[in-house]
């Protein structure tokens, strides 16, 4: 599928999100500033019409927060999210309602994201009715259409969520999102709660629907294999920042940021002949309350040098549409020029 290069649907500009923590008495007495979890720290990207942007990262990297900010479930603390050229924070009335309809989210947990007391018909009718998608008389026909679209049996409409398996519930979530004919789908860990064989069914369905309905998709996931499979472009997040963003093939074949490379090395490949005993990345994620000064990855990066501890690297051009945030601008280019990754077996 061709990606139109010029038509930006959504863009994020310096988006930051802080969640303030409750102030403790002792901190208040000392006059200490209120602590906050820095979930997003200056995120920039653009989303083109018709493309799939994969967002990967480990837990706590801010990928779900970003998804929620994009659909307007959370307001960003700083920066702005632009939808077709308008800042979503200032959308009111019909414009806001139209944005809410056109940007839809599918949630991670198919067990808690559906109201257990509503049948599938009620869930879909509510969506169709609120956004005045169809006259009342046409609603049953549209529901049958939607169920067919996500390949659920016709008799599914009058059943309750608990009567379905996890994969089927995720299909109901997709049908609900598609009921209002959105332009953009934000899928937060769409298949991570599902078994591998069922995962493949839902992934196939998403690929087909995107083709058929010309959807723009933001696919948030922690599974690199899945993101690679489904995305045109991929953004790698770490501690609330995008460290690298680029076309899927370029990013996976020549990662230009040490964290991206560590993430790729750590993901187990389906090839029993490729085994290593070296650990891809030492250490663990620092606390998002006290962010490291400089590059967020400096506490774990085997290549970190003085500059990484004082100056935060910005996303800069590495290739066509490929940008990375690293002071080592030639990282990943000439393998001989950089030292090999850490080869300690046990950290």
């Amino acid at each position: 599928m061709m990606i139109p290069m010029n038509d930006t649907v959504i863009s994020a500009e310096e988006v930051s999100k802080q969640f303030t923590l409750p102030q403790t008495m002792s901190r208040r007495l000392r006059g200490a500033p209120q602590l906050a979890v820095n979930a997003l720290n200056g995120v920039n990207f653009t989303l083109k019409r018709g493309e799939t942007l994969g967002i990967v990262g480990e837990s706590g990297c801010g990928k779900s927060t970003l998804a929620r900010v994009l659909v307007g479930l959370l307001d960003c603390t700083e920066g702005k999210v632009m939808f077709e050229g308008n800042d979503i924070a200032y959308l009111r009335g019909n414009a806001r309602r139209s944005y809410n309809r056109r940007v839809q989210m599918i949630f991670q947990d198919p067990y808690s994201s559906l109201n257990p007391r509503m049948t599938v018909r009620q869930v879909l009718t509510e969506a169709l009715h609120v956004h005045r998608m169809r006259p009342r008389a046409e609603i049953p026909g549209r529901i049958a259409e939607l169920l067919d679209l996500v390949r659920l049996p016709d008799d599914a409409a009058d059943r309750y969520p608990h009567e379905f398996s996890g994969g089927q519930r995720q299909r109901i979530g997709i049908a609900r999102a598609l009921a209002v004919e959105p332009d953009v789908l934000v899928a937060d860990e769409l298949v991570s709660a599902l078994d591998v064989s069922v995962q493949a069914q839902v992934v196939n369905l998403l690929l087909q629907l995107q083709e058929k309905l010309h959807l723009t998709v933001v696919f948030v996931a922690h599974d690199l294999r899945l993101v690679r499979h489904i995305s045109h472009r991929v953004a790698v997040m770490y501690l609330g920042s995008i460290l690298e963003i680029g076309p899927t093939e370029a990013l996976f074949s020549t990662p230009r940021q040490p964290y991206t490379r560590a993430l790729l090395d750590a993901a187990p490949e389906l090839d029993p002949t490729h085994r290593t005993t070296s650990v891809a990345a030492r250490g663990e994620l620092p606390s998002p309350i006290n962010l490291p000064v400089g590059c967020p990855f400096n506490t774990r990066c085997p290549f970190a040098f003085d500059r990484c501890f004082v100056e935060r690297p910005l996303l800069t051009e590495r290739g066509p549409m490929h940008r990375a945030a690293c002071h080592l601008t030639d990282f990943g280019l000439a393998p001989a020029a950089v030292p090999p990754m850490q080869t300690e077996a046990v950290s």
Partner: protein
Amino acid sequence: MSALPSQALTPALSVRDLTTTFVTSAGRVTAVDNVGFDVFPGEVLGLVGESGSGKSVTLRSIMRLIHAPGVVGGSVLWQGRDLVTMPERELRRIRGAEIAMIFQEPMTALNPVLPVGLQIEENLKAHTPLDRAGRTKRALELMDLVGIPEARRRLSDYPHQFSGGMRQRAMIAISLASNPKLLLADEPTTALDVTIQDQILKLILELKRELGMSVVFVTHDLGVVAATCDRMAVMYAGRIVETGEVASVFAKPRHAYTRGLLGSVPRSGAERTMLLSIDGTPPSLAAIPPGCPFNPRCSFATEVCRTVVPPLDEVSPARLAACHHHDRVAAAGSPVA
């Protein structure tokens, strides 16, 4: 890593006809159905399957961690002795000592109100003759061994003060306290992030080499199997449907379910194409279809599959498969090769 040790002919653990049933409101269900496999010394065996396939129950049945109304039948031979019929008192000298186990969710497996150091020492107290000072010293060594930094200070920390990866390391330290000969690992990395998973997997393999243990690795992730295991056994609806060397199973699966499972995992070079998914969902244990339990989802199924349960037979050297059409499946080729 892939070659079996020379003494491979005598298995360390030999499981035969293991059957575990539970009484539920839907009647008696068979969670593990006539499962048999061997684990050789120094070998890593992967037990793969989707949720509800019986892989975790198999592991727990080996250790007799199944509570009533669950019933375990069959035999589990550990160095010539049958764990299933062994008196409880005797079993306690083996369980946690010669055979250790680590669990999926370290937060629920560790005691939240006891310091981690004490929990390691508990195992030392139960299974080694060390005195108090010796136990503390050994606990420190174990924490170092599994890569917990500042071990001395962290001995008195509680599990909630540890991160997920560190809790899993602490649990591995507890299980290693008694120098086990066999480690049963029940999805030890499923709850962890990919870089931490990588650290823990490499740690387990490293310790396996150093201590000469055998490992049974339960997982749903075929990537983990490819990266760590020597042999694998695929489970479906409580039965083993295929076993063999990992490289050979990946190269030429001989059961339609194994083939479908391999095809369901996205792989590089096939971006944005349809995955070879398996239609339908795994059956409920209360309603396993007659014949081959996989037949309603299988694209190779014929009439015989709907009536006759296929036996787990040797279909090629060192490969067992329970499929009437293993030749056709093999001819269809591997989706990952």
